[in-house]
């Protein structure tokens, strides 16, 4: 096993697109073990932050530094699941086999690893079905299986349940919990505060591209430290004013 990727350190990371500042001097450190949930209103820069950390977007300024470098061409040690799962016109199993091939897994091992990944998310029965005609929940579970199968050290999730019904959402949360239990660092963006409360150990709260608050999840929901976070929670959970959450 190579040296750990974590902790991840962001130093004064800014991202400007079309004259608009999407991320504004974000500095943070992510460590092993905790489930980190990124919250914030629309346009706060949450998705862009995830993409910058995952290396899909280069920051305009500032640095993103992992504890050890990923060698170019070597299998990736971090993975990402997107809001809309990107699946190819192959069977569910075929999608996983492709990802294993990209990761350099020898052909003889692919079938077994893909099948066990499907089993872990409860999709073994639809292994041979074309991936793109599965239900939204099944597609997202398949995307999670694909990410998990590669045993990443860090898994980024960008609103993985945004388009799903409550039942499918529960299933996804169960899988995310299992991935966490298996030792993968979870970094997730969500708009679902119930989900954030169920899954988060710590909260990163973004507002207008700035990281305005960061801390223990329970404390954040009980007594947000900043006016922005308080207003956000107020807006998202209007009943909170009368409840003693």
């Amino acid at each position, binding site marked *: 096993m190579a040296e750990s990727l974590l902790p991840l350190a962001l130093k004064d990371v800014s991202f400007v697109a079309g004259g608009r500042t999407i991320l504004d001097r974000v500095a943070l450190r992510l460590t092993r073990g905790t489930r980190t949930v990124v919250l914030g209103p629309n346009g706060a820069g949450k998705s862009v932050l995830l*993409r910058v950390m*995952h*290396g*899909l977007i280069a920051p305009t300024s500032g640095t993103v530094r992992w504890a050890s470098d990923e060698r170019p*061409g*070597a*299998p*990736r040690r971090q*993975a*990402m699941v*997107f809001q809309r799962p*990107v699946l*190819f*016109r*192959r069977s569910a199993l075929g999608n996983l086999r*492709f*990802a294993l091939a*990209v*990761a350099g897994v020898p052909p003889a091992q692919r079938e077994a690893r893909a099948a066990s990944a499907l089993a872990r998310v409860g999709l073994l029965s639809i292994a041979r079905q*074309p991936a*793109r*005609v599965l239900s939204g929940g099944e597609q997202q579970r398949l995307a999670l299986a*694909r990410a998990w199968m*590669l045993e990443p050290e860090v898994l980024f999730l960008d609103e993985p349940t945004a388009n799903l019904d409550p039942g499918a959402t529960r299933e996804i949360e169960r899988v995310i919990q299992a991935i966490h239990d298996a030792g993968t660092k979870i970094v997730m963006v969500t708009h679902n505060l119930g989900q954030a409360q169920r899954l988060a150990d710590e909260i990163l709260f973004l507002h207008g591209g700035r990281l305005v608050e960061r801390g223990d999840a329970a404390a954040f929901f009980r007594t947000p430290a900043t006016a922005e976070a308080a207003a956000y929670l107020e807006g998202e959970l209007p009943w909170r004013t009368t409840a003693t959450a």
Partner: protein
Amino acid sequence: MNTLTQAGAEAFAMVARLDARLVEIIALSLGVSLSSVALSCAFALPLGAALAVATFRGRGALVTTLNALLGLPAVVVGLLVYLLLSRAGPLGALGLLFTPRAMVIAQAILVFPLLAALTRQVVADAWAETREQLVSLGAGTWTSAGALLVDLRFTLLTIVLAGFGRAISEVGAVMIVGGNIDGVTRVMTTAIALETSKGDLPLALGLGVVLLALVLALNIGASSIKDAAQRRHG
């Protein structure tokens, strides 16, 4: 009108009894055009996909050139290949001029811009949707290009078919480099041109009908394969 009906009746009779001359010409047409499209695909599809996925200096200029070449006249391609393959030309020693191979080369060049440009377009659209996922998985440029070609296989079928349609229906290139030699390099389009000028309208019309029927059948076949695959794969 009388000529047309008479010629039409004779044409159908020729098709119905599988006239030997007719069959020979059709077989050569199919052989040449299928080979040329296969040959062209081997280069045009990877190039189109690479142009969609890779970023390098001069890509924009290359794409513009490729798109401009869509309007390449068949006779010009014929002329260029003729100059290359003629005795005095750089490839004259190969002795390919006025052979079916020369026709394959000419048609392959003719359909190359069409195949590459259309492939680039559909792969570029798919790349916009899948880039982040492929990069996230660690796929490099060539892996991504290959994966998208596989993913778009049913769409590419339509593109390949368009290339075949262009190849089998062109007359200028094969006329120049093939020479329309009876029994050797005579294909449907060159035969139609010749028989019409000779006044043998039944054979010309028969070939025309077969040409149309072939192109139509291929299109129906390809689009039903594509529809079935799309229903299955989404």
